[in-house]
């Protein structure tokens, strides 16, 4: 069954057509340049940009696969920015009505969870599902540890109680005057000093035995450190690197605790921050230590938001007949949970 998927939960407008796990067409318009000058994602600007781009992107994929071949429309229902989600949902409902298709709603986080298993149009990579997996979703909006038990079955083990890891990196970058998005700049600066930890900022929540994360205390001590050392000229590299290390070390230690607790050694690292090569290396080392297997999103574009992963989740939902019965009941869910 071919499915056209739409994703507008945050600052990427994305449309894709998938069949099973294979991506037949994929379009993404990134709004990052629009938001850069604001230093963060601005909801109404995001909404307007989604509105401006979505028809164009849909037309692009429909040039490759005609609307007649498509049986269902999938859309991200949440979590995400309310005004942004609204654009995709409205468009999906419109297509469902106009072309008499079925509707499937998808949780954005499910998309990320499936991202290591997404295939290109030729069906590569050919990774078979071998449940269960331990998934760490890390992005600007989420830091969540999940057991991926079986298709469409998840158990949340822990999540952030305040800021997401990517958000913490963005805020640190802002304090350092590095602009938005902060994560990639911090990654680059850190790499230039070999990711050394110069200042040993506190590792939040490591004492707690839960699998929850918290980054607000780290933010506080970073703020104090900058304030108390105003006079000293500390170079940005060492600050960025030490902060990033504190965040990543926390992610690694919590993942290790989850491995010990669950005895699951197949680890997926997904979400925007999984694009960070240093975090990948740390996670690879951890998994090696436990003689497990590591999975990342199967293609680079799958680390950030995209509609392909949403379409793949929708494929599995369609196999279980999980279509929306009354489209009027579908509304955006900005804080949708798994």
């Amino acid at each position: 069954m071919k499915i056209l998927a739409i994703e507008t939960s945050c600052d990427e407008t994305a449309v894709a057509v998938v069949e099973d796990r294979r991506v037949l067409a994929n379009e993404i318009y990134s709004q990052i340049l629009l938001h850069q000058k604001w230093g963060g994602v601005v909801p109404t600007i995001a909404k307007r940009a989604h509105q401006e781009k979505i028809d164009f992107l849909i037309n692009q994929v429909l040039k490759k696969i005609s609307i007649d071949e498509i049986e269902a429309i999938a859309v991200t229902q949440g979590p995400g920015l309310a005004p942004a989600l609204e654009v995709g949902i409205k468009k999906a409902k419109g297509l469902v009505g106009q072309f008499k298709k079925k509707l499937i709603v998808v949780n954005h986080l499910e998309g990320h969870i499936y991202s290591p298993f997404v295939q290109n149009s030729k069906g590569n990579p050919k990774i078979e599902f071998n449940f269960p997996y331990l998934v760490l979703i890390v992005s600007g909006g989420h830091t969540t540890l999940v057991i991926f038990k079986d298709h469409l079955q998840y158990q949340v083990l822990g999540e952030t109680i305040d800021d997401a890891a990517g958000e913490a990196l963005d805020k640190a970058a802002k304090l350092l005057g590095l602009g938005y998005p902060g994560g990639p700049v911090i990654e680059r600066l850190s790499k230039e000093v070999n990711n050394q930890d110069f200042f040993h900022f506190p590792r939040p929540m490591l004492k707690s035995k839960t699998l929850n994360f918290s980054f607000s205390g780290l933010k506080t001590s970073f703020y104090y450190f900058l304030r108390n050392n105003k006079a000293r000229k500390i170079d940005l590299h060492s600050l960025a690197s030490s902060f990033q290390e504190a965040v990543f070390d926390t992610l690694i230690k919590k993942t290790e605790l989850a491995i010990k607790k669950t005895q699951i050694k197949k680890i997926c690292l997904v979400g925007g921050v999984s694009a960070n090569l240093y975090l990948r290396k740390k996670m690879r080392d951890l998994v090696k230590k436990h003689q497990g297997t590591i999975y990342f999103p199967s293609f680079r574009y799958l680390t950030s938001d995209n509609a392909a992963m949403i379409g793949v989740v929708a494929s599995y939902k369609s196999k279980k007949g999980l279509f929306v019965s009354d489209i009027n009941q579908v509304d955006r869910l900005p804080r949708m949970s798994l």
Partner: protein
Amino acid sequence: MKIINQLEFRTIIKVLKKGGLVIFPSDTVYGALVDATNKEAVTKLLQFKNRPPGKAISIFVADFKMAEFYVAIKNKEKKILTELLPGPLTIVLPSKHRTDRRLESEKGTLGIRLPLYNPILRLVTQYKKPLTATSANLGGYSTHYSIDSLLKQLPKKKQEMIDLIVDSGKLPYNKPSTVVDLSEEKLKILRYGDLNFINTKTWISSSPRQTKMIAQYLLKKNLFFCRSKPLIFIIEGDLGVGKTIFVKGLGEALTVEKIVSPSFVIFYEYKIDNHPFAKKLIHFDLFNVSDQEELSSLKIDSLLAPSHIIVIEWGEKIGEIFKQLKEKGKVIYLHIKYQKNINRRKIIVNEVI
């Protein structure tokens, strides 16, 4: 000694009227309650607590009117009193000697407690006379948050002195009340509890837990506004200072769990269950918002309805909308400031009229 799990006020009042000693929960710890005007009852309490003479014991009152009958309140103090109470505070004022004199200090002052805690308020209101407000532990021992721990500490003889125990389970670990002396020229803090301040507009927090308590205190004092208009907290403060912690505190008091930073999505909306008139908590974070056009398109004005509690982090960015908020809602403007000590925060509160 009898133990009950329900607030059977008639039973409790009967025991108190006979001069009985009742162990009762409070907003801080389990307390030992007797009729503060009954000589025999007070004698019993002093024996129970092994209280040396001259060491004062405070009283619970039901309202300001009852307070005025038992302590002398001048106009200046009255203003401070109404700003601070009700809350987890003991206010020391000159006694009018209408309660047992042994409850007073050597200077003839008396501490009054008007807690934000319904069971106590209802009990004192129905009893129509003040009750002693002292912790249920023996002198020199630690305080109790559960009946189990109390009974473990008490020798049999002491247990026999108790007429009635009202067990309401494990209380949260709140410190005993902050004691404020208003009987002299200058306001003096005699004991620090969880709710500490420099003056009635400036609160001091030494931990995330205390920040949450200050949030809950301010919420409870202002929640009634929600019946007729939105209650709005605007919070200003640097990164990591504890703004979201403050909101988590509000959330806990409204049984809203799992509040996280909304910076990434600008705002989250939470439904409040089981509250008679507060229905929604809306949590904004304007960290990523930078111009007026952007702000106006958030349509904050459409959320300005009674039964809504709206919290706005990075509220200093609110700009022109502030006027609208002020007209349509009750606005409380907070500034949370870092202090030299890394754990300490100053919370400056301004009610906008």
